[in-house]
């Protein structure tokens, strides 16, 4: 019996895949009804399902599939044309089949629903409808039918004249008979005898010789049969299905191998034996390649999600009376399986939203001078170790005023907050929980559980969401997500003698207070410690106190503060020591420890010991940094940011030559690095270094700004590098010294411009040049900003 179950399971898996393909095929076919090959493939899929479920005795499913097959065979033979009504009916058929398959999966039989309305509709559509279409149909009919039968499908003419109500009955009764006469064991054995062959050929081979009295319907499988089996053997030769559990296990094993390799390499350092050295070197290389290979097995293309969208968009557009085209780019972009699963629902939601709210009705579009057909453009690409997904529509866009009014009405923001908000901030209000601008709640969207859930889900996997919109032009949603959840960069800190990992995504900056600062820097507000970080109070949380592992300690000379972002709040985590950043492999904690909100998981460090991964949000919640009133915080923070933007800016001060001072906006600085001069390589005439798996071009500011105040000629080692990220590309600015981070109002005192500076200002009583990053980069590399412009879709 279990063998039969396995066969059924295989049938289910295969059928689900086929149905997904059907969705796509039908939507394509609707646009291009003459595509016979696709029609034939749709026909074969339904036929296979029908055949197999007949074999398993799922009579209801078989009945539904059978009517669909009849319609499809007429379409394939060119007796009828595929019009929207028929497409809808066929899609409904796909849904019904899917529903029944789900039923089979959970209960083992195909349910009690007989889908009579659907069968009726399909049967009705079998009749040539109106005169117009019928004429058209018969017009193309003869030639097409000829073309069809000339393809060598000789038995077809026998099939087509048969009328559906007649053709419907015999197989059903036959099935019942065959089911009762033959014990299920034989069925299972029969199926197992040829498992790789498509189920339909098994069907046509087994029942037919026994029930020889079956008329033409029984013969139907034959024409499609041989072709189909050829197709699937080629597929099964190049790919195999593997249980995900097995892949996970392989991944764990490779992780172990990496650790063992590391230990051997450590041991190798003390050895002199040449053979041993070269062998361990080879082991090293093979392990690395193996690790990469296994990681790749878990990667899946974005297409796995996206391929479902054309169908969703089509149905939705039809429902809303809109015309929508969907274009995709970067379907082959690969992501870890777990991430693909995590973003599936949020993406679907966004796409539905775009069709329902974004794109206008055809009439409206015409009055606005746009094509009647709206366009939804999906784009995915890898960038800087992350995957970017953009979903843009050329619809109505988001009107900031409407958002504002809605937010006011719902009491999400106050009147004066609203007055001070920029358009951009307004648009971001749609991410607040309980926000919806849909005038009327449809069954598609508008229930106010939408964008905030999208945002939370994306952020849960370490991603970010950004939205840009222009009224009447369209909206673009940009999502950035990590490539894999399994391996993440993390900062390793110590507390109470133990190491902990903090995911890099939450990390903003590190502050180290020494000596006098350490004693005076931290102030108390009624027992709550705070630190003044560039003029703003940063609440402090002591990690050892949160972990209840506080040890009595004397006055500290050094205080390390890790500035973290939790939700929309910043706070400083005081730790004992800061070690380094490392790529860590995330492992889940056992169920016993899931209840502790402070830990997100665990990882194994290079020395083989376990370290816990801190859950930044959990710590913030436990310490009370993030409270329930999170919406308020968000808007306040936005206010704050705006205020700051108006008056002051954070600047990174750098020293060049003997006494020249330069400043760049901190916002464009990604990281500060010290890079040993020995690591600098050359590509073309450009100095570069390998940095986080990419090639980072270096730009020496002394070269760029002229030799003003040349030092003593010798370049410092290590190089002080300011990594600038602009428009998704990075460049390293080489300076002589990093001085400080200050807040200053950027009002130019002197605009004696050199190409790469915006002007000068006085900071800390000293004249400082403000570096114009964009023109500096352009001087360094004229092609820097010449990036391919994201494909526009109109």
């Amino acid at each position, binding site marked *: 019996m279990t063998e039969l179950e396995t066969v059924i399971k295989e049938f289910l898996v295969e059928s689900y895949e086929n149905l997904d393909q059907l969705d796509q095929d039908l939507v394509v076919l609707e646009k291009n009804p003459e595509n016979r090959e696709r029609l034939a493939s749709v026909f074969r899929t339904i036929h296979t399902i029908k055949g197999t479920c007949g074999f398993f005795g799922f009579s209801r499913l078989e009945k539904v599939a059978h009517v669909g097959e009849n319609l499809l065979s007429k379409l394939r033979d060119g007796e009828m044309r595929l019009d929207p009504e028929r497409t809808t009916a066929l899609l409904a058929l796909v849904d019904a089949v899917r529903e029944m398959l789900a039923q089979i999966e959970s209960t083992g039989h195909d349910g009690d629903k007989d889908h009579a309305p659907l069968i009726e509709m399909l049967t009705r559509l079998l009749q040539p409808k109106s005169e117009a279409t019928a004429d058209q149909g018969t017009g193309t009919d003869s030639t097409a039918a000829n073309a069809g039968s000339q393809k060598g499908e000789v038995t077809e003419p026998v099939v087509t004249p048969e009328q559906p109500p007649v053709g419907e009955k015999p197989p059903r009764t036959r099935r019942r008979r065959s089911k009762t006469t033959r014990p299920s064991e034989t069925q299972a054995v029969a199926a197992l005898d040829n498992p790789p062959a498509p189920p339909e050929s098994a069907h046509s081979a087994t029942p037919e010789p026994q029930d020889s009295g079956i008329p033409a319907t029984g013969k139907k499988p034959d024409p499609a049969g041989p072709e189909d089996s050829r197709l699937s053997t080629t597929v099964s030769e190049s790919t195999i299905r593997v249980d995900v559990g097995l892949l996970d296990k392989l991944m*764990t*094993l490779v*992780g*172990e191998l990496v*650790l063992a390799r590391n230990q051997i390499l450590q041991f190798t350092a003390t050895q002199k034996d040449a053979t041993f050295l070269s062998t361990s070197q080879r082991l090293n290389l093979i392990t690395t390649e193996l690790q990469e290979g296994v990681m790749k097995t878990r990667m899946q293309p974005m297409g796995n999600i996206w391929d479902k969208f054309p169908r969703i968009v089509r149905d939705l557009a039809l429902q809303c009376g809109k015309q929508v085209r969907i274009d995709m780019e970067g379907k082959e972009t690969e992501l870890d399986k777990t991430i693909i699963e995590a973003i599936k629902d949020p993406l679907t939601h966004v796409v539905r939203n775009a069709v329902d709210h974004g794109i206008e009705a055809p009439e409206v579009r015409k009055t606005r001078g746009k094509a009647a057909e709206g366009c939804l453009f999906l784009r995915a690409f890898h960038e800087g170790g992350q995957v970017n997904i953009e979903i843009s529509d050329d619809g109505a866009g988001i009107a900031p005023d409407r958002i504002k009014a809605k937010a006011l009405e719902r009491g999400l923001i106050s009147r004066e907050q609203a007055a001070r908000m920029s358009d951009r901030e307004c648009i971001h209000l749609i991410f607040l929980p309980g926000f919806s601008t849909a005038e009327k709640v449809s069954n598609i969207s508008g229930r106010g559980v939408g964008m905030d859930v999208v945002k939370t889900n994306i952020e849960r996997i370490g991603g970010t969401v950004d939205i840009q919109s222009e009224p009447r032009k369209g909206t673009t949603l940009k999502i950035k997500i990590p490539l894999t959840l399994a391996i993440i960069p993390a900062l390793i800190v110590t507390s*109470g003698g*133990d190491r902990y990992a903090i995911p890099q995504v939450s990390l903003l900056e590190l502050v180290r207070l020494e000596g006098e600062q350490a004693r005076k820097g931290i102030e108390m507000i009624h027992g709550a410690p705070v630190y003044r970080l560039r003029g703003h109070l940063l609440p402090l949380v002591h990690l050892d106190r949160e*972990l*209840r*592992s506080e040890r009595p300690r004397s006055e500290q000379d050094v205080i390390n503060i890790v500035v973290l972002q939790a939700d929309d709040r910043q706070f400083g985590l005081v730790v004992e020591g800061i070690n380094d950043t490392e790529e860590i492999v995330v*492992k889940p*904690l*056992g*169920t*016993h*420890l*899931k*209840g*502790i909100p*402070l*830990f997100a998981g*665990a990882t*194994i460090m290079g020395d*083989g*010991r*376990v*370290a*816990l991964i801190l859950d930044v949000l959990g710590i913030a919640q436990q310490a009370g940094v993030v409270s329930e009133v999170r919406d308020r915080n968000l808007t306040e923070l936005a206010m704050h940011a705006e205020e700051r933007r108006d008056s002051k800016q954070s600047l990174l001060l750098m020293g060049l030559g003997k006494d020249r001072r330069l400043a760049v906006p901190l916002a464009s600085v990604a990281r500060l690095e010290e890079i040993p001069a020995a690591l600098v390589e050359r590509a073309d005439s450009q100095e570069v270094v390998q940095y986080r798996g990419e090639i980072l071009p270096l730009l020496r500011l002394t070269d760029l700004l002229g030799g003003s105040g040349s030092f003593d000629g010798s370049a410092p080692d290590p190089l002080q590098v300011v990594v600038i990220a602009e428009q998704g590309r990075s460049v390293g600015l080489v300076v002589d010294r990093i001085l400080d981070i200050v807040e200053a109002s950027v009002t130019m005192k002197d605009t004696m411009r050199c190409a790469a500076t915006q002007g000068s200002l006085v900071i800390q009583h000293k004249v400082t040049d403000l570096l114009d990053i964009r023109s500096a980069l352009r001087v360094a590399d004229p092609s820097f900003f010449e990036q391919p412009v994201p494909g526009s879709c109109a």
Partner: protein
Amino acid sequence: MTTSRQFCTFYVNGLFFGVEVNQVQEVIRYQEMTRVPIASPVIRGLINLRGQIVTAFDLRQRLELGERPFEQLPMNVVVRTADGPMSLLVDEIGDVVEVAEESFERPPETLDGVARELIRGAYKLEGQLLLHLDIETTVQTGVN
């Protein structure tokens, strides 16, 4: 027909315990552990078992048998549970013994407290009693 079962045995604070052999994945000597702050004292830490992170339960704490002498390092009995492998920290490992089903007796009514939940009963061996530890109940503990 007498049925017999095989037990992997160990000592905790002088008491003689056993778990069924087929529930035991392996027995390993003391491993360095990473403390889990905030968790219950029963959870002594996390060990790296060939790349897999395994929670270690201190049976002395679980059975409320007091602290293990500082100089005595516990052994790990790694058992299979519904939630994956778990390690039980014990004082000392005994032999694998074969016991007859008939020698089993349920714990007396006088046994109470935590021991009553964790000890399914005793096998009357020659000279001593083998206490049958209920693994699933033993690892049902977590946050304080």
